[in-house]
């Protein structure tokens, strides 16, 4: 395993010049910067967005706003706002009915809200301080799963897509410090998501004490809930659908490099909050990996469909969950069928070198079997890696073809085994059940490389296995086995 190097990380300079400028045309950026237009386009494509209750374009419209027609909970947003500025969420009305309640418990009277909307109209929160439109929209009711990890507000999931491939994802969880918003700069927690599985990995938040902004602090639990919960290992529901929605948004808006913010509504399911033409780079910290190498891998690939894009994203960039588990548990994750390098016996390598065939190891699809103690290998593989003499020698020995009980077999090994078997490569004999019969087979020592670890292991030569090599549980301590995948 390699460490992430600075050259794998995407900085603002490169993001702007290599990805935003060439891949995000001004027309598409104009759509992404305009929430109303974005909603209209996404709805045409059948993508759900929060329902708009009112659009206030002028002070006159504000003056005649029918406040009674508004539900108890709603959200006010500037149409062209940036960085979550100017967004206010209301959870309900006070008992007296003359004020609305915010996530932190503070209330805002109708006059306060009018003033806030007037500020939006004047462009206080919009890009370039230009005149803006205030959107009064539905408040998303958070899915119960993510709700338990966030302090009030609405958590969301950001998926970055490039060249119709999902590249990286994170979930942003509101905290007390962030006042219920999912804004990282305000103190929300960001948790990386494994693209392949939709399972959360690393978590962090911006350090409240750091002098420099953008200084992150690693977390393993939520920070301000009554009962703080571990943040890694959460399965984001409906993950494939979320990836599909993100790619559909990319196609509909026309941005080559896009950040799609999706919330999970209790009743409606995934709802797209907004699309971002200049998504921030903090997602790299949440995933503990760089965006640059991923974007470079995705660039130029011919993506035929949304499904193809998802498959590519999962295959190219999945697997963070394994690293996360490894860092937490100290154990490496092996797939149930893993590619393992099997080293040839030195003599064979020498011969092959003489023949100018530079092969001293081969990669074998290997089955991880916790049901057997000792590892197993087929005789053909044993022959290939240089144990032909040993297998021939064993075949030449006269010995009972099968035993009625395991005890009989063990007695035979204990009493006569050492005298019968006198070959330098055969370490000992082992009893195995082959096709329902109890047999005795030779054990040899081979060298393998699994997940970067080179180790000598003992293997029984037997042909009663489906894979050429089976690793038994005596070699699997210190590993976790992922049964969902065959190999990377």
């Amino acid at each position: 395993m390699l460490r992430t190097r600075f050259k794998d990380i995407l900085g603002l300079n490169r993001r702007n010049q290599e990805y935003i400028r060439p891949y995000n045309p001004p027309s598409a950026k104009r759509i992404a910067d305009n929430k109303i237009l974005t909603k209209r386009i996404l709805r045409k494509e059948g993508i759900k967005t929060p329902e708009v209750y009112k659009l206030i374009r002028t002070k006159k419209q504000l003056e005649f706003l029918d406040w009674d027609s508004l539900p108890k909970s709603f959200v006010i947003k500037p149409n062209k706002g940036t960085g979550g500025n100017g967004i206010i969420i209301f959870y309900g009305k006070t008992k007296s009915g003359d004020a609305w309640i915010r996530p932190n418990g503070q209330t805002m009277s109708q006059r306060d809200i009018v003033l806030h909307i007037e500020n939006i109209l004047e462009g206080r929160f919009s890009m370039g301080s230009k005149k803006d439109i205030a959107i009064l929209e539905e408040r998303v009711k958070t899915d119960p799963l993510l709700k338990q990890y966030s302090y009030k507000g609405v958590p969301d999931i950001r998926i970055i897509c490039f060249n119709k491939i999902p590249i990286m994802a994170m979930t942003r969880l509101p905290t007390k410090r962030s006042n219920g918003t999912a804004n990282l700069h305000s103190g929300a927690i960001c948790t990386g998501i494994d693209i392949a599985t939709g399972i959360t990995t690393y978590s962090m938040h911006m350090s409240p004490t750091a002098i420099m902004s953008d200084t992150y602090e690693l977390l393993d639990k939520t920070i301000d809930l009554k009962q703080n919960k571990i943040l890694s290992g959460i399965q984001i529901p409906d993950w494939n659908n979320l990836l599909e929605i993100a790619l559909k948004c990319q196609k509909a808006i026309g941005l080559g490099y896009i950040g799609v913010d999706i919330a999970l509504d209790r009743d409606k399911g995934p709802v797209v909050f907004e699309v971002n033409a200049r998504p921030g780079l903090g997602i790299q910290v949440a995933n503990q990996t760089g965006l640059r190498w991923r974007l470079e891998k995705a660039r130029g690939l011919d993506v035929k469909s949304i499904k193809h894009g998802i498959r590519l994203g999962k295959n190219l960039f999945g697997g963070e969950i394994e690293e996360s588990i490894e860092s937490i548990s100290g154990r490496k994750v092996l797939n149930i069928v893993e590619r393992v390098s099997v080293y040839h016996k030195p003599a064979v390598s020498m011969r092959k070198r003489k023949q100018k065939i530079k092969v001293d190891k081969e990669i074998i699809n290997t089955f991880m079997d916790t049901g057997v103690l000792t590892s197993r290998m087929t005789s053909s593989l044993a022959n290939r890696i240089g144990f032909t003499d040993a297998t021939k020698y064993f075949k030449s020995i006269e010995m009972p073809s099968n035993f009625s009980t395991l005890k009989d077999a063990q007695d035979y090994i204990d009493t006569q085994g050492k005298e019968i078997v006198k070959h330098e490569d055969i370490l000992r004999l082992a009893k195995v059940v082959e096709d329902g019969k109890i047999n005795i087979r030779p054990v040899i020592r081979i060298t393998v490389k699994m997940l970067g670890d080179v180790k000598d292991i003992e293997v029984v030569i037997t042909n009663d296995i489906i894979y050429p090599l089976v690793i038994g549980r005596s070699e699997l301590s210190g590993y976790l086995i992922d049964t969902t995948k065959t190999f990377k």
Partner: protein
Amino acid sequence: MEYSPFTTWLLNHGLSSQTLELLIAIAILATIVSFARYLFGTKSYGVYAPIILAIAYSYTGLKYGLVITAVVIATSLLSYSMLKKIRMHYITRIAINYCILTISLILFFVLINRFVLTLDNLQNIPPLAMISIAALGDFFTKQYVKKSLKASMLIVFSTIAISTIGWYVITRDVISTYFSNNLWIIPVLILANIAVGQFKGLRVKDFFRFRSITGSKENA
């Protein structure tokens, strides 16, 4: 001061030496701001604010300039915090901020006169330079309204830091004389800005920001 033939020609054709120095200072300061942004990741209130601030400091002297800046920021902070609870429109809030700033600066001058406080030369400061510094209050309040106090203070400090570096550069006689006599450097500054404008590498700030990632394992 001896000028090169080209500079002498310019000075004989309607350009005063002070204007020339000021114009050169603008080019240098703008380049410092762009280098600070794209190589170091230092945010500032655009390009205009650090330029104006650095030029103002060159008229007031750094010590007086920084003191006035501190008064402006403290007043803006105080007035915004006081007015936050009162319902009013944004522009009126800014206007009140300026009114309070006027009062604070008057009080400040009186206090300095009364207690001296090693700033005895304050009365000689050109008023226009002081007004230029006062404009920083507007930038600060605008930022403070949108972002947190911490974020606004960070940008103020980095703007002041860039302006201070700029002040140092433009007030060196050696630099000023060299640039006045070698005006070809201005196109060189343009080329340098083009180069920085195309720089794709990480900013110095990015190295700090992403240092936690480089300590982690990768499956590249």
